[in-house]
């Protein structure tokens, strides 16, 4: 589970990182790596770019926190989201020009923890089996919805079904795959995911 995102917890974490506590930096990475990764992937739809940028986001956030640039610890999450958005936007802005090299600071925490990678592999395997477990019609509806971005009315027309049937099947398929991936993933990874907390 993530480090508890309370106001006090944030203040302790931010203060500890500013004081050079490497354990606090590890806790920061454990707390924000997954949501940052998901956000970048959802916004870019590019797994390779996501892998590169997630590291840059973590490095930039840790460097800023080390320098004590975040005045209001309550806004820690907002601060991380802002960095992620800026880096992604910058990537698209400078794609036409020469990309700027990222300077690597010393003593960084592990930015690709084995537990996170293990979870991702598990999730990918479970996603494949969840997709295979769907009826072909549901799989097609799900793909047309999530990948092609089509509305139920358009899908209904293409598949010769009614909009209501498409909507119903889509909801059922989404619930099914989400439960299968999430439920199984949580069962299989329980015990792997221990997250440290910042020392106060």
């Amino acid at each position: 589970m993530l480090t508890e995102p309370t106001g006090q917890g944030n203040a302790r974490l931010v203060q500890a990182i500013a004081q050079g506590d490497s354990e606090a930096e590890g806790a920061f990475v454990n707390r924000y790596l997954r949501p940052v990764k998901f956000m970048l992937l959802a916004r870019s739809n590019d797994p390779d770019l996501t892998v590169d940028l997630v590291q840059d986001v973590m490095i930039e956030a840790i460097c800023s926190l080390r320098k004590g640039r975040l005045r209001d610890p309550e806004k820690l999450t907002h601060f991380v989201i802002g960095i992620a958005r800026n880096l992604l936007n910058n990537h698209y802005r400078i794609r036409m020009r020469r990309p700027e090299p990222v300077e690597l600071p010393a003593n960084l925490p592990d930015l690709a923890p084995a537990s996170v990678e293990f979870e991702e592999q598990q999730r990918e395997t479970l996603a494949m089996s969840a997709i295979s477990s769907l009826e072909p019609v549901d799989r097609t509806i799900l793909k047309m919805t999530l990948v092609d971005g089509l509305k139920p009315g358009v899908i209904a027309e293409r598949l010769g079904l009614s909009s209501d049937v498409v909507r119903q099947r889509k909801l059922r398929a989404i619930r099914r795959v989400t439960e299968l991936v999430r439920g199984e993933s949580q069962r299989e990874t329980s015990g792997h995911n221990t997250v440290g907390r910042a020392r106060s």
Partner: protein
Amino acid sequence: MSNCTGAPAQQWLEAYLQGTLPKAQALRFEEHYFECPVCLAQAEALGTVTQKLGRQPKKAPGKIVAWPARAAALGAIAALLVLGFFGIREFRKLAQPGVAGGVPTAATRPSVSAQHSNAPVQISQLADLTLLPYHAPSLRGLGEDPHFASGMTAYGAQDCPRALKALAQVPAGNEDASAARFYSGVCSANLGDFRAAEEQLRSVASASGSGLEEQALYYMAQIALARNDAAAARDTLTRTIALHGDIEQRARAQLASIPTGAH
């Protein structure tokens, strides 16, 4: 701890993944799942499923026909096969083997196994000609050409004919000209006009400094694959890899997946 039961993810996740959630709502949802493990887990699960579905081979969506109609259609096909079998047998009896104008019989026709052994390896199924994702103009900074903006809006709506029309109006010297040519190439390929697509993509790939050389080469490789032209696909993928850019790994994987026997 959060008391959330996952309702925000159930409400917003699908539109968020499709990129259709209004900006303000998307920002609120992001702020929520950054702090909510329940919604984050749901989001990651559906996000992974979406990625996996996106990588599955594309099939033309056929209409799902109701059972009585399907049964009738199957019956008709079976009847045609039976009639065809007996019809060919009768026709062969009438035709002289090896005589010009007659139907070649098994003696004069290459065997099925021989046909198979010489059949070219179909690499077209490796081609990925889906429209590449494009990000809203707000991500690209200010000063965007209006024709380019309108073309990319149409592109985002998967309306390739309208996108092509608008992108063609982007002035040649404009900052967005290379990107306009690139996305025009992608649209042309998506519409099946490979010749126009190659012309546009080649001009982007050969113009250094556009920042889109790698993508243009990679997409040219997809067209070569779609045409079953393994040599051209290998060549363009090798050139893509040589640029050591964002899609190097994907190009390497695709190059490795082209069967050695394919020409």
